[in-house]
């Protein structure tokens, strides 16, 4: 009987060890980033809005449906992502927009663009601050003013800024990708072990109550 118990014990150990190995193998096998969710990221460039859609893990969403709503829920326009998971459109209205991606089979992601990012015309032009800041270079500014309008300067600056910022935005898009880390995985397993502890606690209470009951009998 005793040896039987021992082999059973050893078997149990082996089983637990095996399953632990399996889990570690899983974590290692998953590699850098694998996931099952879908995200869309949108940014403003000039008078257009660009979006990029991805499944978690970096797989691009091809032919996913993109629908643009304003904040009251009115549909503004819709389109499909291309081979590179991108979709761009001209700003239809200067309001905050909710961009929803439907990648099919119950996958859905969304991104909101606040009105402030659109550089709405309703905002006052930053003309006074410009002249104050460049107070020492006043003559130059005035010279520029005389030949080209401020509106033109603004457009040129915006264009070159957009061009300069393009790689930065690209990096932002890529770094936004947050895949589950090892910490998440082990955290989850820890929660499950905690639940086992709760179960074991109630089991113990039940058993000790039984024993108490027998003793009083």
């Amino acid at each position, binding site marked *: 009987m005793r040896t039987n118990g021992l082999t059973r014990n050893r078997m149990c150990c082996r089983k637990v060890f095996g399953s632990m190995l399996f889990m570690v193998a899983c974590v290692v096998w998953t590699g850098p980033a694998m996931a099952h969710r879908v995200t869309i990221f949108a940014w403003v460039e000039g008078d257009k809005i660009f979006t990029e859609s991805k*499944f978690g893990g970096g797989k691009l969403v091809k032919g996913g449906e993109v629908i643009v709503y304003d904040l009251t829920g009115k549909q503004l326009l819709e389109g499909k992502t291309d081979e590179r998971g991108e979709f761009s459109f001209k700003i239809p209205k200067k309001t905050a927009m909710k961009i929803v991606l439907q990648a099919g089979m119950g996958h859905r992601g969304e991104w909101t663009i606040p009105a402030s990012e659109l550089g709405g015309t309703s905002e006052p032009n930053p003309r006074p601050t410009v002249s104050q800041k460049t107070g020492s270079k006043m003559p130059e500014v005035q010279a520029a003013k005389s030949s080209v309008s401020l509106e033109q300067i603004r457009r040129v600056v915006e264009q070159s800024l957009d061009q300069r910022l393009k790689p930065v935005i690209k990096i932002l898009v890529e770094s936004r990708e947050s895949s589950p880390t090892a910490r998440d995985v082990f*955290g989850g397993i820890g929660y499950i072990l905690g639940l086992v502890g709760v179960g074991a606690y109630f089991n113990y209470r039940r058993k000790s109550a039984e024993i108490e009951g027998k003793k009083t009998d």
Partner: protein
Amino acid sequence: MHISEGVLSGPVLIAGIAFAAAGTAIGLKKLDYDRIPRAAILSASFFVASLIHVPIGPSSVHLILNGIVGLILGWGAFPVILVALTLQAILFQFGGITTLGVNTMIMALPAVFCYYLFGRLVSKRSHIALPAAFVCGALSVFLGAVMVGLALTFTEENFLKVSYLVVIAHLPVMIIEGIITVFCVAFLRKVQPDMLPGNSEKTPPYAP
């Protein structure tokens, strides 16, 4: 196979929560204390399996393992899958909190179904048991895909079209899970046969 937040309509979500709650209640009733460690190991495996991404096919799919969970636990698959899905939703942002009920139904109902269908077969002789295990692993994923189609039917698209798409996307997963289930069953038959459902009545889980 997780449905994201904001896709399904209210009634579908509520129905999913109600059914999942009922299933979980039955599962907790049937899951006695001595099987809790077993359930926890399977819950952890299910939780981690969703990170194993299968790069074949048009969409983004991952392992599910609901077949083996159902085969070993029966109705206990409901609480086990609910716990794992909750953790996946919180830690990995897979699916969502409001869709927990529907997602639990999608993966746990096929698991229980496969338990009744194959539970007795996997303890029979190996030329019956191993093919049964393969079909169990594959069928549970297939039925899960059909459940996704069913859930989406009420809100947007046409049932056959969606189900077809989801099934096609999960074909590689079905085959892989079939093979995994065969290995698990073959291993358990050798090492711990009383973990398989057909045998559990003959030998009590803890003999003195």
